[in-house]
């Protein structure tokens, strides 16, 4: 029988019940009493720091007060006016580095108002109701083409549809949603929430999704500009970085993005193979998501190997602690040298690093870890620049997402700025307002 100790890659290391429990909501929904108690803690600050910290500028004290006065659906309206993907952001935002870090009760007691969970309480309440909370303005007759149906594209599309424009979203993959659907840890967005949220969002009307359309493959920018009055690119970072290491061709080595996408798409996680000893290379959110989920699938040991120290990791302290709590070994100041094996990966060889004056130097000290699965989470790259000006691997934008080409806007991970769902929503929304202004 398969267990945590079964060598190599194996599915079903845990039984279905354990898997289900492992992948349950990381931050479960509040019941009304919990929400009332949590909402009572908000001080209704003046010019509240949490609003400033929110990339979408949600009026947090207002919506929390609306919850405490018994109107979660009105609270949701306050949220959705700023962030139409407030439901997903409530689940996946690193609130510990955004609104909740800024909460004055974090300063006062080390226990912020749980804004993320309150936002979920409100948005869940509103989304449980039939219908869509916004109405379209009178039709403008204008048409906008949006490439990519991730959070940037969806936010842009919704805002434009609200203004009365017609929107076509071109999506390369088999399902819409971008990283909301294919990225993110499964325990952050359970019960098919990403797909449900898109259905709900499309309730505004005026948005068509054309699937199987990839920029640079079967659509191009000139044709899009021809067909539409404006174009928005929310194409994300579809490429993945790799390393120049011996042994990367061994079976059991893959990139973490695909591993996570498989997890998100699997109806039955007990059929997903995972190694007995898993090593994840990287220190960002993707690395943490891959490492934690490997453990939750039943890997016996999971090591996250990062070349710098914990403070330098892209993942938040909360995420690092989550990984540690789940039994992931956070190994810092190591860089991969080689992957060893015979057909399939058996070991990974790492070298200790030393940071001096900001530069990372190998120390010559090497260590080998048993590994039957190696996941690379060392960053993603822009796969298609469509001939637009770029800087540091991203599409150059000015103001609210204006690219180097007039009539073409961009936002989300393909443009500079933090690669977060909530940032993508803000950029998509703001570009939509700018497009609307340009077309009016």
């Amino acid at each position, binding site marked *: 029988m398969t267990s945590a100790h079964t060598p190599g890659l194996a599915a079903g290391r845990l039984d279905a019940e354990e898997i289900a429990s492992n992948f349950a909501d990381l931050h479960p929904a509040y019941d009304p009493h919990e929400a*009332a*108690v949590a909402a*009572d*803690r908000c001080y209704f600050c003046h*010019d509240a720091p949490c609003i400033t910290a929110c990339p979408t500028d949600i009026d947090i004290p207002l919506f929390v007060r609306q919850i405490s006065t018994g109107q979660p659906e009105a609270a949701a309206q306050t949220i959705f006016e700023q962030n139409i993907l407030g439901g997903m952001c409530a689940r996946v935002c690193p609130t510990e580095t955004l609104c909740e870090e800024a909460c*004055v009760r974090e*300063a006062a007691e080390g226990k912020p108002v749980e804004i993320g969970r309150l936002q979920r309480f409100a948005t869940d309440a509103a989304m449980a109701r039939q219908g869509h909370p916004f109405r379209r303005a009178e039709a403008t007759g204008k048409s906008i083409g949006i490439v990519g149906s991730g959070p940037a594209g969806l936010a842009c599309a919704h805002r434009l549809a609200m203004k009365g424009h017609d929107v076509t979203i071109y999506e390369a993959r088999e399902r819409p949603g971008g990283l909301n659907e294919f990225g993110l840890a499964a325990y952050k967005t359970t019960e098919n929430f990403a797909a449900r949220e898109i259905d709900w969002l499309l309730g505004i009307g005026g948005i068509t999704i054309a699937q199987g359309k990839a920029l640079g493959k079967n659509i191009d920018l000139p044709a899009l500009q021809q067909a539409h009055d404006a174009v928005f690119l929310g194409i994300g970072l579809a490429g993945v970085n790799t390393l120049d290491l011996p042994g990367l061709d061994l079976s059991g080595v893959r990139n973490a993005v695909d591993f996570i996408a498989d997890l998100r798409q699997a109806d039955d996680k007990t059929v997903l193979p995972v190694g007995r000893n898993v090593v994840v290379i990287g220190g960002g959110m993707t690395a943490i998501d891959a490492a934690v989920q490997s453990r939750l699938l039943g890997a016996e040991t999971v090591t996250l190997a990062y070349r710098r120290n914990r403070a330098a990791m892209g993942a938040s302290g909360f995420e690092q602690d989550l990984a540690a709590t789940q039994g992931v070994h956070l190994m810092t100041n190591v860089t991969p040298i080689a992957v060893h094996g015979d057909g399939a990966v058996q070991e990974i060889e790492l070298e200790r690093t030393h940071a001096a004056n900001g530069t990372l130097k190998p120390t010559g000290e090497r260590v080998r870890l048993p590994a039957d699965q190696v996941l690379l989470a060392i960053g993603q790259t822009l796969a298609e620049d469509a001939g637009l000006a770029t800087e540091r691997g991203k599409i150059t934008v000015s103001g609210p997402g204006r690219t180097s080409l007039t009539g073409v806007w961009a936002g989300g991970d393909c443009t500079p700025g933090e690669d977060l769902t909530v940032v993508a929503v803000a950029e998509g929304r703001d570009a939509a307002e700018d497009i609307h202004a340009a077309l009016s």
Partner: protein
Amino acid sequence: MADLTTDFLGIKSPNPFWLASAPPTDKEYNVRRAFDAGWGGVVWKTLGEAGPPVVNVNGPRYGAIWGADRRLLGLNNIELITDRPLEVNLEEMTRVKRDYPDHALIASIMVPCEEASWKAILPRVAETGADGIELNFGCPHGMSERGMGAAVGQVPEYIQMVAEWCKQYYDQPVIVKLTPNITDIRYPARAAKAGGADAVSLINTVSSITAVNLDTFSPEPSIDGKGSHGGYCGPAVKPIALNMVAEIARDPETHGLPVSGIGGITTWRDAAEYIALGCGNVQVCTAAMTYGFKIVEEMKRGLSQWMDEKGYATIEDFRGRAVPNVTDWQYLNLNYVTKARIDQDACIKCGRCYAACEDTSHQAITMSADRVFDVDDSECVACNLCIDVCPVEECITMERLAPGTTDPRTGRVIPAEHADWTSHPNNPMARAAE
């Protein structure tokens, strides 16, 4: 260890914490539990005339308002006096007093304003061995419609008349319980004293509607879609009660009249404040109804601890100490100038002080781009609102400007001597300085 025993009108009790006449004191069972839990005394739920007892509604009797975390701040009730036969209550009182001789047991009474009614009930109450009686001239709901309760307490002449009957037909202490539903509390207090009452107790509940149901448009508590005003009590009424207690304590006509303090007493501190305003003991109801009888333990321990810290050996050592400091506004020292001071280390940067001052007061708090809040002394009138809205206790305090310094707001050098409205040049009635 402080001595908490009290002697109120000659009635001894092991501590100053009595349960007020109310639902918690309606039955032998409850009262025994209360004494076992450590309450010093009990004023039994108000007795009515012999014969068929009153009836209560069969729907909700209470309404409430809450603060954060659903902390109960105010409670309102439409329950009437005891709805159990007089005989049953008297038998139970007799048994309880026999078994708890060292605890105070007071009978609360409400019968019609007719001499015969009082003459009939008083001897029967006396037979129970109760330590005294409290005349319920306070309940604002239900019974007042029948000419009793607050309907009596609102007419000083009636108070005096009934008090006189009670002193005539009963030889133990008589306490008159006053209603706050009146313009000037001193008049009923004076009437009670004139009638020979040994003490007053106050306040009874405040006429109130706690809420309106926005689905049915019925007041709460709702009885089949209708509501009637109830009597409001709990922490929310404490400031009203303290003022009324103080008014009686400093009125030359009633100064020195023993007072049993009632109204929102929830902690030892509340009790100490009432006693500092002259009360010989305190009566509690809502706190017990909210938390159960065990709450008295915190009150006793807290009062004892504070007395030890302050060096007060007995209740009498600090009773009434605050009374001389209650005065009229016209005598307040206008040369006492303070300014708000914000402790930057304690500040959590919520900005509520700023919003309160900027929007609703004197624009005396500045806010920097990085959320540092400071007081502008040239605008600060020392209103205290910033302190009142600050979530962090002691983060903002008031600091007195020393006499001889200049108040940046007025540009005036602050005189050392007291000066008040009575001699202020803007006062057309000002007396010439002597």
